[in-house]
């Protein structure tokens, strides 16, 4: 009895945060279960069959699609299938409701009438169908054919899961650096402003080097310069903290203002746009069908995880946070370690800034406002102790995802913005509180490295 209780407790403490994340996913999946419009081969087949039943091959048939590519592809397939069944007068209409109206007007002017209209995905919602009898009495009774809908949670759609990653990638990457800083019992408030600074500097460099049509290397050069600038500021801050023992809170607060001010004064307060097309590759492009942001996130987290759990420098970081004096006495280069973590944090913020610039296709001086707080929240929700010495990289990743899933889920449910902040605040509080109640030894299984408890 006591033994099972202990086992249960261990299970909870090891997998607690992950369990919360999965519960949240399940929860939002259930709530966003919704009718979906099918697309592609099966939908096309369905539509073609239905049309073949309701109309004869000689009659005029319309296939309507919206602006979406998948919808247009479906329409094309329907037309092809009907063509094979010797429907010779199939007409495809693509675009907006306006395009449909113009096509219908043309038919009327030629005193024709469609025997059947096959409607794909988003075009089903158009109100043209409702006004059809009044606006086109000449057509008489027109048969509308729509594909059968099915049920699936919006939350679990691939496009949405990618959106969940997309929205958190900047925060998650910066959280790697922040985890290291917090493990040394420090804090870095400057990361939000560094996002803006990196984005602004890198886009400005790209613009100077050529603007809209500039080759891809200008983008790489811009990113590099943006990230290095951030790294230098981070090194400066780390040096102040390590050498002069200035409180990290104050040092990085000052740097936060400096970086934000620089971002605004460099740009005169305006966003920088009309940048090279290649800029969007990082934040919006795909390699092998997987979004680049997802790949980058996975690579960086895998690297950081191995670094923190398998290398000497990684262990030094824990040692400095656990007990600085003891670490010094056992030969850990404390000052060097501290400077290092602030550089990592600033560089991570720089990378985050480049990703954000790429996602927005612009450098914005007011980017990343308040992001430092979301980053810190992700780290703490992930089980890292603000007093230093304990925490894991993968825990942080889970923390970041908890925040992202809650934000995304609430948007999917259409919860009002005011309420969203309240809920997000409560979720962060609740997650941290649960972590403390469990005894704080969260996610140690992921690294094999125990925490202070």
């Amino acid at each position, binding site marked *: 009895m006591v033994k099972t209780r202990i086992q249960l407790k261990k299970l909870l403490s090891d997998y607690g945060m992950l369990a919360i994340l999965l519960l949240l996913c399940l929860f939002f999946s259930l709530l966003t279960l919704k009718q979906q419009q099918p697309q592609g081969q099966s939908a096309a087949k369905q539509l073609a069959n239905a049309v073949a039943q309701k109309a004869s091959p000689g009659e005029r048939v319309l296939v309507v699609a919206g602006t979406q590519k998948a919808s247009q592809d479906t329409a094309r397939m329907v037309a092809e299938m009907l063509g094979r069944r010797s429907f010779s007068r199939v007409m495809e209409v693509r675009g907006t409701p306006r395009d449909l109206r113009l096509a219908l007007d043309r038919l009327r002017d030629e005193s024709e009438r469609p025997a059947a209209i096959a409607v794909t995905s988003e075009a089903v919602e158009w109100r*043209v169908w409702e006004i059809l009898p009044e606006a086109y009495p000449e057509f008489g009774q027109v048969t509308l054919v729509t594909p059968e809908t099915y049920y699936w949670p919006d939350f679990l759609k691939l496009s949405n899961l990618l959106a969940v990653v997309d929205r958190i990638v900047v925060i998650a990457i910066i959280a790697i650096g922040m985890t290291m800083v917090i493990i040394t019992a420090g804090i870095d408030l400057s990361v939000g402003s560094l996002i803006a600074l990196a984005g602004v500097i890198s886009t400005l460099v790209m613009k100077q080097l050529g603007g809209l049509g500039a080759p891809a290397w200008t983008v790489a050069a811009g990113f590099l310069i943006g990230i290095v600038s951030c790294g230098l500021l981070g090194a400066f801050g780390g040096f102040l903290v390590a050498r002069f023992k200035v409180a990290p809170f104050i040092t990085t607060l000052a740097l936060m203002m400096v970086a934000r001010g620089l971002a605004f004064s460099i740009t005169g307060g305006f966003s920088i746009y009309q940048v090279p097309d290649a800029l969007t590759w990082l934040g919006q492009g795909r390699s092998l069908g997987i979004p680049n942001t997802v790949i980058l996130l996975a690579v960086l987290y895998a690297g950081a995880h191995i670094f923190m759990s398998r290398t000497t420098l990684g262990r030094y970081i824990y040692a400095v946070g656990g007990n600085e004096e003891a670490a010094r006495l056992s030969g850990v280069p404390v000052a060097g370690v501290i400077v290092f973590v602030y550089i990592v944090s600033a560089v991570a913020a720089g990378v985050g800034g480049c990703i954000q610039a790429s996602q*927005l296709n612009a450098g914005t001086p007011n980017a990343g406002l308040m992001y430092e707080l979301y980053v810190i929240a992700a780290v703490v929700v992930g089980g890292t102790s603000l007093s230093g010495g304990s925490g894991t990289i993968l825990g942080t990743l889970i923390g970041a995802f908890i925040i992202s899933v809650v934000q995304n889920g609430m948007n*999917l449910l259409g919860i009002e913005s005011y309420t969203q902040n309240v809920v997000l605040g409560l979720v962060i509080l*609740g997650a941290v509180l649960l972590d403390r109640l469990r005894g704080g030894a969260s996610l140690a299984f992921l690294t094999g490295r125990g925490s202070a408890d």
Partner: protein
Amino acid sequence: MFRLNMGRSLVYWVLAGAFALTLVGCGGNRLEQPSRGRIGMTCMDLTNPYFKLIANVMQKEAARHGYELVALDGNNDAAKQNNQMSDFVAQKYSAIFLNPADSRAAGEGVKKAHAAGIPVFTFDVQVADEEAKALVVSHIGSDNYQGGRLAAESMMEVTADRGKIAIISYPEISSCIFRVQGFRDYLKEHHSQLDIVTELSGKGNRNDGYATATDVLQAHPDIVAIFGVNDPSALGAYAAVVKAGREDDITVIGFDASPAGKQAVFEKKLYDTPQQFPRKMAVGTVDAFMKYLEGDALPKTTLIPCAHYRYADSVNDESRIKEQW
């Protein structure tokens, strides 16, 4: 120890329960009423009563046509707004009403929505990116440039076209840039004798408007009037003028005709506050969507002209008394 553990796990479950209930409470009721579809709306700042009003009117208007409108706060953060657009797209909303927090960084969200077949309508602020602008179905907003000209007209009238004046601007926001442009152009075209000694940002809010105007009064104690590009900055400037004891010889002109601005005009704190019509904008946006769905022809851009709002307009104004826009 055992009892302590009991207590802990109890707290654990109570917390988890409360957690779930909060979310169900917020989300559950939305699923009950089947509507024609949902419209996603995101604006630069939902804590600003101007946008709150637009959101409310849009919600009512959309409901009249059987749509549910979800209004989200862009928090003046282009990245946040971009994420919200992604969520609207993932959710296959019927339409998106966008008020860009940053007109130059809003293009990507519009392109994404267009690719997913979701029509985008912008209001109040336009998207700057030409490619994205072409994808926006229609835009409706105030004619800020013409409103700025109205402010200049009042300025020449109240100063008898003589003396030094200051502008409290907000150059981060394109609508405010247009106001200043209209203001300056009107003065130039009418060969005004007014001398604009300084133009400084009041960041569109009362605190910064106050601070900026205080500094302006230190540097240029001889100004005769101040133009604040929106009511909060104008009212902040007025507070600075009062603090300096100069309310009898410095005139302040605002912009917006917000409830606070109207009241200030009535109390003769502001001379004029060119009026915007957020209700018309909200109704117009919903109408544009309905017309779109029916396949009617739509103008690409609709600008609603502003109107003077001076003391005579305020005296019997119902909306001022009821503290409405």
